[in-house]
């Protein structure tokens, strides 16, 4: 799985070689079909929709082993439609159906036509958006939103979600259960909000996508395949939001730009031995240029309108890194300016820490040290102590640096981070100062 994986979907194209299946076809189509069937049946019958989708994919597995059909997606939809129609025709099913489409599903004259209709491309996209807004409803806790999005829209199994969040099956199942209960209790509708509602509801949807992406991008513990998958899914969902005029707002494009910029560095951040490569040491030729271009494209679109979101600012910071020909040529003054704006809107300790690091390059190490020391709430976080270690090292105070690195070492259990900190620690006792890794 190379970098193609991440942006393959941007040029998503079914016209591959015959008998070659698109990566993640089953997973992506499972998400789409679940969204459509849940819309047809109503959320109360969401599990029925999931069962039909599972049976469809299972049937595909059994038959496609011997011969992959010419149009795999059409095959899946045909089988799912037939299973749905069979299900709806069974006696006494209608009592369980809660969607607004119920009257049309009741009549044999309209049933096949309606089921067919909702499996066309536009309606599939619409169903996914409806599901996304329901799953990311503000009444549902954030971590449950993410689990529900991965389960219903991305075709992840409970085990796969648990792996991604280093959690266990039971607690993910509980999260999912509570989220679904909430949708049923609060009678959250499967619709795409309009007007002012869109602005507020979109906020939680974008936040969920942002967290999903960061989980994949920053988590240093889960394996790299699943982390990449999370980034991939976050970008895919955000792209879906840009394809609908109602949700294609500047902040949607800003978030998409941010994710494209960051994803462009995904592979360069880890070396062949799985160790972390710091920004200053990354081989910039390994940055994915097409993703950077995609980032530029969406960043340009995001500049429409007067509203500047935190995504705009983070995208701007990320773009400055992408544009710099080398670490030395990074425009730290501009980056610091964006961090200053970002801290006004989102004064979280991690943002402030990152701002201080930008400050250390834009102005002085001493000023940065003073800023970081104000962030008392981060004292027990290895990033806090590692950053202070770096700065003291840079100003030649290796004894202080050593203490901070040693503290940081006790605060992380991640082997890659340990390796990196140990390298830095070794340099504090080797003189002269040859620059830190």
């Amino acid at each position: 799985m190379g970098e193609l994986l991440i942006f393959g979907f941007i040029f998503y194209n079914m016209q591959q070689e015959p008998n070659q299946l698109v990566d993640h076809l089953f997973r992506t189509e499972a998400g789409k079909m679940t969204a459509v069937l849940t819309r047809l049946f109503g959320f109360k019958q969401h599990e029925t929709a999931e069962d039909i989708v599972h049976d469809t994919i299972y049937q595909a597995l059994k038959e496609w082993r011997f011969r992959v059909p010419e149009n795999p997606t059409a095959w899946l939809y045909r089988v799912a439609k037939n299973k749905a129609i069979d299900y709806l025709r069974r006696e006494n099913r209608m009592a369980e159906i809660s969607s607004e489409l119920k009257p049309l599903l009741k009549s044999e004259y309209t049933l096949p036509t309606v089921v067919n209709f909702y499996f066309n491309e536009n309606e599939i996209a619409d169903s996914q958006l409806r599901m996304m807004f329901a799953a990311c409803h503000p009444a549902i806790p954030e971590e449950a939103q993410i689990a529900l999005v991965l389960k219903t829209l991305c075709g992840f199994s409970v085990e796969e979600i648990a792996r991604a969040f280093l959690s266990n099956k039971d607690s993910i199942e509980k999260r999912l259960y509570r989220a679904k209960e909430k949708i049923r209790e609060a009678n959250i509708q499967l619709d795409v909000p309009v007007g002012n509602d869109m602005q507020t509801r979109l906020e939680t949807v974008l936040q969920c996508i942002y967290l999903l992406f960061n989980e994949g991008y920053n988590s240093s513990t889960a394996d790299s395949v699943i982390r990449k998958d999370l980034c991939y899914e976050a970008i895919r969902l955000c792209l879906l939001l840009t394809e609908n005029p109602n949700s294609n707002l500047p902040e949607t494009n800003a978030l998409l730009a941010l994710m494209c910029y960051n994803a462009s560095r995904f592979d360069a951040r880890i070396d062949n031995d799985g160790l972390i490569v710091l920004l200053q040491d990354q081989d910039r030729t390994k940055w994915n240029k097409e993703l950077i271009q995609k980032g530029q494209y969406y960043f340009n679109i995001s500049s429409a309108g007067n509203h500047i979101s935190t995504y705009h600012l983070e995208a701007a910071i990320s773009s400055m890194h992408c544009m710099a020909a080398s670490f030395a040529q990074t425009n730290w003054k501009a980056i610091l300016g964006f961090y200053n704006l970002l801290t006004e809107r989102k004064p979280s300790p991690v943002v402030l820490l990152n701002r201080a690091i930008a400050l250390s390059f834009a102005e002085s190490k001493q000023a940065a040290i003073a800023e970081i020391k104000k962030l008392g709430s981060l004292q027990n976080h290895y990033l806090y102590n590692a950053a202070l270690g770096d700065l003291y090292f840079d100003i030649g105070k290796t004894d202080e640096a050593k203490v901070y690195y040693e503290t940081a070492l006790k605060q992380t259990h991640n082997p890659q981070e340990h390796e990196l900190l140990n390298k830095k620690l070794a340099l504090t006792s080797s003189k002269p100062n040859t620059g830190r890794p």
Partner: protein
Amino acid sequence: MAEFLLLFRHDDIRNANLSPEQMQAQMQKWVAWMGDIASRGKMLSSQPLERTGKVVRGTKKAITDGPFAEGKEVIGGYLLCKADTIEEAIAIAEGCPILEHDAGTVEVRPIGRM
């Protein structure tokens, strides 16, 4: 060049708990295996068999549902291929993903020469 019929027994994918991604990975193994046989010009035909069916028996031509005594004995599909020797046909069979399961079998039968 002789022809061989490979019969697959044991429903190796009955584990209904696989995720879509796992199912795709599973399927891709089969696609890769068959693609390899085809690319070497050895593939004649291959089809899955449904689990349901009828058995017509004896002089009375009695028809029963069937034929299946035990799940693992059910033929799930076949592949007809070309090979110079039974050894070569066995080598082809050895690559079959059904053998990732202990109960999976591939029966290799030379097509009778007329």
